[in-house]
């Protein structure tokens, strides 16, 4: 059975989700570091 691959837009969405989440984590960790130091 050959399944249809999702569109390029679908993957771009996921890549952006991973990137934005990484940036948010770095921002959150920076705030935590500043708060506790």
């Amino acid at each position, binding site marked *: 059975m050959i*399944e249809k*691959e*999702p569109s390029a837009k679908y*993957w771009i969405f*996921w*890549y952006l*989700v*991973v*990137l934005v*989440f*990484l940036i948010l*984590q*770095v921002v959150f*960790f*920076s705030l*935590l*570091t500043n*708060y*506790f*130091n």
Partner: protein
Amino acid sequence: MATIDWIVLVLTLAGIITYGLFKSKHSKNLEGYFLGGRTMPWYIILLSIMGTQASAITFLSAPGQAYTDGMRFVQYYFGLPLAMIIISIFFVPIFHKLKVYTAYEYLQNRFDGKTRTLTSILFLASRGLSTGISIYAPSIIVSALLGWNIYITNLVMGGFLIIYTVAGGAKAVAYTQRLQFFIIMSGMAIAGYMAVKLLPRGVGLGDALTAGGLSGKMNIITTGVGEEGFNWKDKYNIWSGIIGGFFLALSYFGTDQSQVGRYLTAKTTRESRLGLLMNGLVKIPMQFFILLIGVLVFAFYQYREAPVFFNQTAVEAAMKTSAAPQLAVLEKQFTESSLQQTIWYEKVNAQPELKDSISANALKMSLLRKDYAKLIKESLPGAENEDTNYIFLYFVTHNLPPGIVGLLIAVIIMAAWGSIAAALNSLASSSVVDLHCQLTTQPIAEKEQYRLSWQYTLGWGLFCIAVAMFATNMGSLIEAVNVLGSIFYGVILGIFLVAFFAKSVKGTAVFWAAVLTEVMVITVYNMEIVSFLWLNLIGAAGVWLLALAIQQFQNSKAHP
């Protein structure tokens, strides 16, 4: 350990083996055995790649790392999500399209047989030895803290998993990793909860984190920039994490068969990609959580007496040497500082001006610990001079209630099983597909290939146990074997990057570029110029540049 701990431990481990055997039904051919018939959904891929990466040492070491050095270790994983994106875009479609069994098989299609053989041998040598050490390293800690015989501990840590790994191949590995993962996460959550619950009355999570912060443990983001500029030897900072960590994750997930073999079991390219991308989403929060447990354990020991050095076996041995009087003096100073710290922590909410005294005292205690460790190292040649890996299990065995101790010992053993099982499966697949079948001139029947597959899995299992047993008597070799990965990964990644992106480069150029760069990486490592994460970047960039240069030279010779 109490009887209830033994019951929990034995039941959990026996349950995993039974479940592995129950899930071991597969087609009796190479695809069924090594790739689970390519039928896995993305969430099994996700749990399988996480279970493969997180070994027993991850769970023993990470909380201890936060206890001694703070939470900055989390930055080591910052490059991982970026690597997941690059692997999803470029690596996964090629591996799936060519329907390869191993990552190195692709190198034969793209270059030639010698490049494939060289890369698979580099993989087998480094992964085979490091898997042996990944049995021994947690065994020595468990045996020291629980008084178990080291050889029997090695057998428990690396032996029983062979039963379901040989019987069930990749499918059994993936399904047991799923079950193991849920038990491991539940165990760690209970340990974190208990660390807060055991704090004195009136001291909560916020106070615990403040205590960690005052002692410099909440240093989650660091820049590596000091008074003399950027420190290239600084192990964990945001730049080494994002750049060095990116190349490390790219080579580990993109070219190490123990990981590639996990996402090749996916039924489609989509399932592989989703599994990898979800790993990019959840890995950092998971590591943050495990490190946070280390800070909570640290806070816990601010309110009650902590040992100066958590490896009590080493302390007892050192106390029988001439260093005993000096050790006793350091221990007395540490205990006094520790008691003072507890008094200040209890008053700090009412008297915030005590914060500076607490920070200064924390620094003094940290230096006392270093002096103590140095003295132990001097009095016991060959002994470990760090106790980082002992801290978490010491906390578990000395402070948690019966039942939970057994569960957490099972967690450590299961974490070992998950990564070792995947390693054995990948070592066998590369041995059969990249070497045995290539070096045999006669075609091998499907039935014979299947027989070879489980025999190689069993053979590698026995080899890794033998390495663990020998390592018991070769303390100093362990560190050397642990750095093997960093030394080879960059070069292997370089070969794959040239394969994917430098279409003009041919086999001979990349082969010699890899050999020359490997020599260069080993030289840089021996010169101790940079921390190990940067070796991945140097290896990959070296192969890339040299391969292009050699190819250019060959072209100019052919067409002057």
